[in-house]
């Protein structure tokens, strides 16, 4: 039982991290109808910028403080992501208005190639470390209830808390601010939003910037776990089943989908893995999402797809 709980917690926290990346997809899809395949590249780009700048600043300005370096690195990386968002909107999306979903998807794949190349050209292609002082030692809890207690990685716990905070902040931003209301209006109906004077282009820049900053946070958390390297952009592929399981248009869906996929992946690896010969976590999430979609084609919380002739 202790072992089961340990796996369960591990799964839940991994799920939170998937949700963090899935969130980026959902934000952009909701506001602009673009399925953004470049999210993984954005995570890599942001993490690379953060890792390198926080390393460079102390060298440039001769100071020691780690906190200051990380803060400055974060601000610079965030500014870069806003610049990327603006450029993407200016140069690409605004010229592809009213195209098919598939054309937009391919355009974001092009952006992904570009960002992957740009990030590694500017910042190098070694493995870099991000050290934001995440606690590394595992935590033992519930020692009284179970033999040997339940082992929880503190690092994952902090990451999950950060993710939860971010989601809460985003929810507040979407529900309570004027910009958030405008974003929801655009998500609902582009034309109606435009006709009451909401500027689409500015909204898109905002939403891509928010997605970029979410990518930055995801990049920092994943980067301090795995190291910042090219494979970071593949993490996004793990978030795709989360997105469709939760529904392309739903933020709570992304969170719940992430938790389901995270737990399902860990439990299946332990309890089903030996039957299949291991390594099944690569496809398990996708098959899980596929089977689920057969029952609910719009995902858990996605908007109901209504076919009209």
């Amino acid at each position, binding site marked *: 039982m202790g072992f089961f709980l340990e796996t369960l917690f591990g799964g839940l926290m991994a799920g939170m991290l998937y949700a963090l990346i899935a969130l980026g997809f959902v934000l952009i899809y909701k506001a602009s109808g673009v399925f953004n395949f470049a999210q993984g590249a954005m995570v890599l780009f942001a993490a690379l910028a953060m890792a390198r700048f926080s390393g460079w600043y102390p060298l440039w300005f001769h100071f020691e403080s780690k906190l200051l370096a990380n803060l400055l690195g974060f601000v610079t990386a965030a500014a870069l992501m806003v610049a990327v968002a603006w450029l993407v909107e200016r140069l690409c999306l605004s010229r592809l208005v009213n195209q098919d979903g*598939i054309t937009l998807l391919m355009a974001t794949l092009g952006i992904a190639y570009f960002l992957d190349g740009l990030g590694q050209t500017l910042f190098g292609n070694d493995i870099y470390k991000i050290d934001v002082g995440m606690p590394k030692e595992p935590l033992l809890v519930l020692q009284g209830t179970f033999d040997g207690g339940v082992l929880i990685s503190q690092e994952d716990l902090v990451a999950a808390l950060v993710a939860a905070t971010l989601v809460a902040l985003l929810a507040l931003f979407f529900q309570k601010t004027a910009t958030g209301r405008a974003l929801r209006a655009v998500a609902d109906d582009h034309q109606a939003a435009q006709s009451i004077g909401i500027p689409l282009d500015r909204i898109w820049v905002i939403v891509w910037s928010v997605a970029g900053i979410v990518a930055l946070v995801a990049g920092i958390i994943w980067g301090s776990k795995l190291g910042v390297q090219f494979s970071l952009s593949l993490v996004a592929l793990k978030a795709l089943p989360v997105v469709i399981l939760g529904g392309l248009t739903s933020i709570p869906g992304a969170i719940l989908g992430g938790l389901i996929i995270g737990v399902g992946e860990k439990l299946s690896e332990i309890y089903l893995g030996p039957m299949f010969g291991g390594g099944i976590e690569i496809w398990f999430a996708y*098959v899980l999402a596929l089977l689920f979609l057969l029952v609910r084609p719009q995902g858990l919380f996605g908007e109901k797809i209504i076919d009209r002739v």
Partner: protein
Amino acid sequence: MLYRENGQFKTSYRADQQLFPVRQDRVAILALLAVAFVLLPLAAPEYLFRAILIPFLILSLAALGLNILVGYCGQISLGTGAFMAVGAYAAYNVQVRIPGMPLIASLLLGGLCATGVGVLFGIPSLRIKGLYLAVATLAAQFFTDWAFLRISWFTNHSSSGSVSVSGLNVFGLPIESPVSKYLLCLGFVSVFALLAKNLVRASIGREWMAMRDMDVAAAVIGIRPMYAKLTAFAVSSFIVGVAGALWGFVHLGAWEPAAFNIDRSFQLLFMVIIGGLGSISGSFIGAAFIILLPLLLNQVPRWFDMPLSTALASHLESMIFGALIVFFLIVEPHGLARLWSTAREKLRLWPFPH
């Protein structure tokens, strides 16, 4: 002046329905075939076959298959690499396990196995649509990646995980030299392109296009969605499977599952979209574009004598590739094939404005 159909009167239904109704088109196609079948094998250097022509032919065959699914039936698939892998590994198993199996038969059987898998993964398309389907087809991709890596029966228990074929021959003629490989691929591509061109203008092709344009409306006028969608998946994955088998047998010779990974799927989707959705010639144009672009980008630094490290060069290449993809999508979202058809319309009137 040259390209005009004035005076080409159709006096029978047969003449009216032929594949290329304009005489200039027929001449151009015949000339192209003559160049491809006769002139190139005589004149082209070996490098051209190995590095450009053979990959181009095989990938345009795969793009053709994908175009039937995405361009004609409107079902987005990100799992093309998986169907190629199924074709390649099935053909390999047929070749290894059944002694004396003719090469063409095992290639086609590989295609048939891919058809089975394609239909299986096509079943969800009856309920799941659009981008949800696109992501769901990634299940096929990751599942086959895993299966061919982990289940050793598929690779005939090879210890390294990679498989290889040798001593290929067709009707007793050895397929060893680049020219013979090229001709084998060209034969397959010509036959399948002809079949595809005819399929998409037959009733089944029209059903696919109706499905693509609006599936509910198509169902209302009596097109069975299950039949239309699953036949599209079947035909598409058959062609893709044969292309996969050719890619493994003829182009690579020895391969691992990584040869058919998700990048391959994206590459094929790029070809179809850059070339033109719903156009047979678009598959070829797209394949040529995607294959030639990296080769060209590779050459550019050499022209200007810029010493670049390999890592930097590959990053710059991926940047330029991405930027060009976006550029072409902006300039011509309907693909390069549309450029050609616009040019043709202009040519028909030239030199008159109307």
